[in-house]
Structures are given as C-alpha cells and as structure tokens.
C-alpha cells in the first residue's frame, strides 16, 4: 500500500495520463469536494467583503462572525420547498440546473493545480475548457425557457446572446496566448493546460508580461470577457435583479436554485483558473527562474504555512476582541477553536515544508512540492475571486445593448489586433 501511494506520488504525470483509474477517481473526488468547499468559502467571503465595502457587518449571527452562515444557508435551501411552476416544462425545468452544474464541474478535469496535480492532461486542454464552459449557457437558456415566464425568458435571451458574443473575444485572447507557447526552443505550440504553464516556465516569463503590452492586452480582454461569461456584475444582465427580478432563475427555489449558484461560483473559479494558467504562470511560484536557488525554494515553500498562520492570528485577534459578555462566550470559544484549527494546519504545513526542504524524492519532499503548487495556484485564483467581489461592489450594471456594443465593437477588434500583432511579433522577434 505505501508503495502504491508512493508510486503515485513519485509520478510526474497526471493520473489520467498515467492511466490510473483509481487515482483519477480520487482526484475527481478531491476536486469535487474542494470546489464545493471553495464555493462555500466564497459565499461567506463575498458576503463579508461586500458588507465591508458597504459599511455593514454582513452575517454575524450564525457562528462567530457568521462563519457558519453558508452551512445554515445550505441547510435552509435543502429543506426549502422545491416549487415547479404549474405551467413550466417539468422535465426541462428539472434538468436545466444540472446542465449548468455539470458543465461547470467538468471543466475541472483539465485544470492543472500542478504539473501532475490534475485529473488529466488533455492534449486539447484549453479547447476542452472553453468548449465545456460554453455549455454552461445551455443550462441558463433552457431554464429561462422552461420557466414559461417572461422575466426568465428575457434573462435567458440576454445571457445566451451575451455569452455567445463574449466567447468570440475570449477565444481570440486565448489563441494569442496559445500562440506564445510556440515560441519554445522546439518551436511547437501546445493546447495542453500543463504544456502552457510549462511553456511559460521554459520561456522564463508569465505570458501577461510577454511582448508587453500584447500579452497584457490579451489578458485584460480575457479578464473582462470572463466576467461577462460568468454573468457577474457589471455584466449580470441575465439576472439583473432590479430589472428582471432574478432573471433566468426567477422561478427556481430551494435546492435547484442553489445548484445554479453553485454552478455560477464554480464557473467563476474555473474561468479564473484559465486566466491564471494562461497568463499568470499557473502553479508556478513568483520568480521561479530568477530566484531558483534551493534556499529560495525553501523560503517560498514557507508561504502556505505562514498564510494559514496569519489567518489563525486574525481569527485569534477576532476572538480576543469579542465583547466580554456572556452572550458572546460560545462564539468566542468557537472562534478560538477555529483559530486553533487554522494554527494546527499552519503548523502541519510548516513541518512539511521544513521536512521536505531537500529536493529529493522523499514523501515529505513530494508533499511539499504538491502543496506549493496548489498553494500558488489557489492564491492566484483567489485574487481573481476577490476582483469579482470588488467589481460587484463598485460598478453599476451595463445595459444590454452597451454590453453587446463593447463585445463586438471594442473587444473583438482589439483581440483580433492583439492576435495579429502577437503572430507578427512572434515571427519577427526571435
């Protein structure tokens, strides 16, 4: 058994590629659980961050600082009556949230959290991601139609038009990044997600800085298009609550509605992962080529532990600063326990980092490496998730025709131009 585990840990390829059904299944489960937990965390963070943007406190009642609020919400949504409108198309109404969810989660099969930390490394990874994530719109369109109601229908029409238009600009931006992968020594590009990150590693530069400002422009276009693609503010036309009450999911309630939310957040994480992989060096830590000494490796591998330590400290301060009133006692204890858990994780991570500091093939070193990869990847994705919240708190909503105009008349020409220039520069420069 240890040998079996070691055989995997020692592998340099993804389980899908190695043909290991067992490990692939484990990975799928880990990712499914991880994404679900991430969505729950995101739910809490979004509510808290949004609240603080808006000078409120946000959830404070369920658990210390509302930490248990997402669980309470989930419980509530699961127990809520599941209403299917009488005039709705029963089957399609039932299947629509599943389509969205399926599309959002399928994408994760090719997201590389590390060189071997992915379910599979598909040859056409990025194409697969774009294709599958574009299937998510089917769920929205179909749900709007099946509700047999005007507002959802308008929401569905809006979102289908919006997603189809922004996919074009998004695709062109992606292609310009893919073009850059071909500037290796071998002169062959790749569509594989892992290959793209490795290309950045070999070229020694994140693609966001490559051919400045071309890479940056492509990245910005992608960053805008991905907000439109996930129906988030300021492009949340499909569910604009002040215009269409709730857009495509107006008629949904309970668990079905929560599936839509789950799909939306999963899709947000997925597109952020694409952006990170394509332009921000994926799992790579900052300056892997510049600061490549083993000492630097060690210093950077301390970051996960330190991050958790910082979180633990914040939680601890929060517990200490709670009012000294008997009403808050249980909350204080809860927060302290939470802080202790975080601190324990921090300790564990630090121990692993120190134990695996030598770059050999020991279990600890392997673990340390894997943790590093996942940590840096997740950190970069988290920045994007924060941006999503920030956008939502700051900007008014675009109008539908303005959105389309920007998509077709601004983003598409710019991304085409960037693509052409990238190709030209790529041919001339080396």
């Amino acid at each position, binding site marked *: 058994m240890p040998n079996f585990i070691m055989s995997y840990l020692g592998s*340099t*390829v993804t389980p899908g*590629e*190695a*043909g290991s*059904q067992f490990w692939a299944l484990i990975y799928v489960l880990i990712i499914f659980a991880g994404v679900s937990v991430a969505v729950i965390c995101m739910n809490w963070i979004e509510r808290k961050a949004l609240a603080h943007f808006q000078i409120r406190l946000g959830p404070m009642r369920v658990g210390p600082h509302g930490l248990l609020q997402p669980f309470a919400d989930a419980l509530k949504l699961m127990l809520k009556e599941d209403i299917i409108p009488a005039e709705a*198309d029963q*089957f*399609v109404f039932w*299947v629509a949230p599943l389509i969205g969810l399926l599309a959002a989660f399928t994408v994760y099969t090719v997201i590389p959290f590390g*060189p071997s930390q992915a379910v599979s*490394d*598909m*040859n*056409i990874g990025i*194409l*697969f991601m*774009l*294709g*599958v994530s*574009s*299937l998510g*719109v*089917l769920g929205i*369109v*179909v749900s*709007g*139609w*099946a509700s047999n109601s005007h507002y959802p*229908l308008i929401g*569905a*029409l809006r979102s*289908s*038009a919006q*997603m*189809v238009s922004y*996919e074009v600009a998004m695709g062109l931006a992606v292609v310009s990044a893919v073009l850059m992968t071909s500037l*290796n*020594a*071998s002169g*062959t590009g*790749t*569509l*594989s997600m*892992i*290959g793209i990150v*490795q*290309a950045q590693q*070999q070229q020694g530069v994140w693609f966001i800085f490559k051919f400045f400002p071309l890479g940056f422009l492509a990245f910005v276009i992608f960053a805008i298009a991905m907000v439109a693609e996930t129906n988030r503010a300021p492009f949340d036309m499909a569910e604009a609550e002040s215009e269409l009450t709730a857009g495509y999911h107006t008629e949904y309630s309970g668990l079905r509605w929560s599936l839509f939310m789950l799909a939306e957040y999963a899709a947000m994480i997925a597109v952020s992962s694409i952006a990170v992989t394509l332009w921000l060096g994926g799992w790579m830590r900052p300056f892997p080529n510049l600061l490549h000494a083993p000492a630097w490796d060690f210093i950077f591998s301390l970051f996960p532990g330190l991050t958790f330590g910082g979180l633990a400290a914040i939680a601890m301060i929060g517990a200490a600063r709670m009012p000294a009133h008997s009403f808050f006692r249980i909350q204080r204890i809860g927060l302290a326990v939470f802080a202790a858990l975080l601190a324990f994780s921090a300790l564990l991570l630090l121990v692993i980092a120190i134990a695996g500091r030598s770059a050999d093939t020991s279990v600890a070193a392997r673990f340390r490496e894997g943790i590093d990869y996942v940590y840096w990847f997740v950190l970069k994705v988290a920045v994007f998730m924060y941006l999503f919240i920030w956008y939502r708190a700051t900007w008014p909503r675009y109008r539908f025709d303005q959105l389309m105009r920007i998509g077709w008349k601004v983003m598409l020409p710019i991304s085409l131009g960037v693509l052409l220039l990238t190709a030209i520069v790529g041919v001339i420069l080396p």
Partner: protein
Amino acid sequence: MNPALNSALSINSGMAPVATPWFFYALAGMAVLSGVFVITRRNAVHAALALIITLLSVAGLYLMLYAPFVAGVQIIVYAGGIMVLFLFVIMLVNIERSSKERAFNRMWPVGLAAAGALMVLFASAIVKGSHINDMFRDRLMPLPESTNTQQIASLLYGEAGRMGQYTFAFEIASLLLLVAILGAVIMTKKKI
C-alpha cells in the same frame, strides 16, 4: 512539443485504453437514442436538447478515435455555439403552434430511403469486418493522440517551408463563411 511533455508521454504510450467497448456502446447507444428523440419529439426545445446529447456523444466517439481536436471543436462549435443559437431561435418561435403540427411531412419516404442506403453502406463495412483496414489502406495514417492537433495544423497550414495540402481549400471555405455572415447582416439590418 516540449521535452518534459515528451518524456511524460513516453511513459504511458504502452497503456491500452480502458473499457473501450463499453464506452463505445454506451456513447453510440446514447447518440442513436437521442437522435431518434430529435426527430420524434414534438416540442422543439426537447428535440434541441436531444440533439445536444447526440452531438456530445459523437464528440465522445471522436475522443475514442484519438481525435481530440475534432472532439473539442465539435463541443465548442456545435454543442456550444450552434445549439445555443438554435435554442435562441426556438424560444422566439411560437411553440404552441409548432407542437400541434405533424412532425413528419410527406418527404419521409425519401428520408427513409436515404437512411436505408446509409445503413447498407455501414453494414457492408462492418461485414468486411477485419478487412476494414484494407479499405482505406492508402489513407491510413498513424495518429497518436499527442500530436493529433499538430498534424491537423500541418495538413491545413503546412509545415515550415511547405504549403499545407488543404490551405487553399481551407481559406476559400473561411472566405465563403465570411461572405455568408456579411450577407446575413445586410439582409436583416435596416441601417448599418
């Protein structure tokens, strides 16, 4: 292709795909069944959903044929793009009326004949069975999964210093599509 990936690939090149017949029959059955649904469902949206399932199963079959690029394009273009537009249009059509109309018009004998002919073709290919490789021997080309995309690219655009076999046809096709797009825009737009 970067060396790291190449070395990675060499590890599993001997791996046989798992449970291939199972996947094949499941996907093929799904494709056929939902294909039947496409033409029998009176509700246009149901038919469209069935068509999406057909397209996805076919994409799965492409994957099994070591043609991931075609599979990806199938998903992104047909399932993702065209079907969304289909649904878009269907939603604007009066569903109540169309669901009352007869699903089959008088062209159905022709359709049946065409389907029968196609079936005979496939059957003959299957009957030849083990000789199937003989049928297209001159076209048979080893297409390992890893370089499939690259080979398509070199067919279309050519490799360094050599024009691709289909570059001209490819460009003509894209030009044709461009003309079609412009035509559609001009026909529907009152003023540009």
